[in-house]
């Protein structure tokens, strides 16, 4: 398959491309999804350091 002698390795080649496609599709679908608690987390972050960092 695809000039590659081992079927297993031909699948490795194909899966590399499919995995990349999956990442692209996921990124597009979730492009504007800020996730749960985003406002609350932003408020915590903006409230300033708590663990000794200045």
């Amino acid at each position: 398959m695809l000039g590659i002698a081992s079927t297993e390795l031909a699948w490795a080649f194909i899966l590399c491309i499919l995995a990349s496609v999956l990442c692209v599709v996921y990124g597009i679908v979730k492009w504007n999804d800020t996730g749960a608690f985003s406002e609350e987390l932003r408020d915590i972050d903006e409230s300033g350091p708590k663990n000794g960092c200045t």
Partner: protein
Amino acid sequence: MAIKIILAAVYLVVVFWLGYRGWRETRQATDYMLAGRRMNPFVMAMSYGATFISTSAIIGFGGAAAMFGLPLLWLTFLNIMVGIFIAMVFFGKRTRRMGVTLDAHTFPELLGLRYKSPFVQGFAGVVVFLFIPVYAAAVLIGISRMLEVGLGINYTASLLIFTGILALYVITGGLKAVMYTDAFQGSLMFVMMLILIVFVYSKLGGVVEAHQALTDLAPKLPESLKAGGMLGWTQGAQAGSPLWLVIYTTIIYGVGIGVLAQPQLAVRFMTVKSDRELNRGVLFGGIFILAMTGVAFMVGALSNVIFFKQAGKIAVDMAGGNIDKIIPIFVSEVMPGWFGVLFLLAMVAAAMSTLSSQYHVGGTSLGRDFYERGLRGRGNPISINRAGVAITVVVTLIWGLVLPPSIIARATAFFFGLCAAAFLPAYLLGLYWKGMTRAGAVVSMVGGFVVSFFYLVFVHTKESAAIGLCKAMYGVDSLAMLAAKGSTGWLLQFTDPNIIALPVSFILAVLVSLATPKMEAKHIEQCWRHL
């Protein structure tokens, strides 16, 4: 030569300008350690990718692909699925949310706060600080070898020049400088790798034709590789043979899974302000990694065909047996002259982006996690972490001067494997299992580290022979050699330490957590508040 100097100068001007920008925007410790938690998703993803993929992946593993062929593509698949998708979606989001909730500034600090344990943070910090210079040195060696071949620059001089340039902007600019420069360097790498794969496939008449030519080259496989179980570059290795174990356990399992517990990568999840940036990062990262390791491994393997057509020799023979030199020789002898210059610059970028992150995470591990938290040291946090980075830079340089050739791929696998055994169970279960206890984390981290380290010193021949302690104590390079040849025990010398150490670390984490008192409900509630 004039063009090389001009391009190098332009590149350095951009890097220093970005480094200066990072320094100018660094006002507090959160800026120095977490880039202010306001990083752009493209910058975060490119920085993550460029840190992940270095000269180790392109030169070291590209050279390994020239020797072992397409089985290395499983590593690319894992790099994308595990290193990008699973890492950002299933680890990244929880890491960011828990990190903000607990106000963690480093990966060891996240573990320390999750388990309410200064020991956990200090231990993780020490492990990172002690071993990341070895991995960093492998990257430093990779790019210095490339400059030795490409430009004829003295190897030691290259080590010193790189160290000086990087030290300047990492020590002063912190993570902002590191990530800004990473994004620029990653973009440069991306373009060069795309040109490389298009050129190679075109030269060989197309994708399928190129693969077929590599398949047809199998009779030229060196006898030593055949004896180890290799069947061909597109045929793979015989299951269970020594080379099969080396390829699938050390390179793929060790590095492919180990990426999940890499402190210098995990900390990037905490540099963005919401899940949205991580979602977008998945898109950028998925494309970037395919263009990096996917291209490097295909080109590495296909270099055998091109070298054989041009010189009648396969890649490893062209490089005189040193696989670290295969990609540099391929670029200098096969690719057009103009590309050689730009590719060299891209490899410099790859090395610098990874090294800067390694210096930064080593420095913050020493400064923040070990000194400030573990030893309760006092002082200005930025100054303490700058001192930590400076010490990491010096230690890395020393390793770079003493480590032997052909070390790149092994040192990378070594660090990735050690991190997986020591950190992955405590990190994963800490994010997903409320029943994971402080004692479980401590025993898992220390146990995983000890088992992995013992295996490296006494069992895994590649490292144990180099270290020499096993030979001095027992008269053999590996204790596995005492077993009957061909037996399971004998084959352990070729098996990655994490085949044993990671499951042991997981089992210890679960069993000890089940057997020890649960952590206070209020603390667990706080940890899970935004998950």
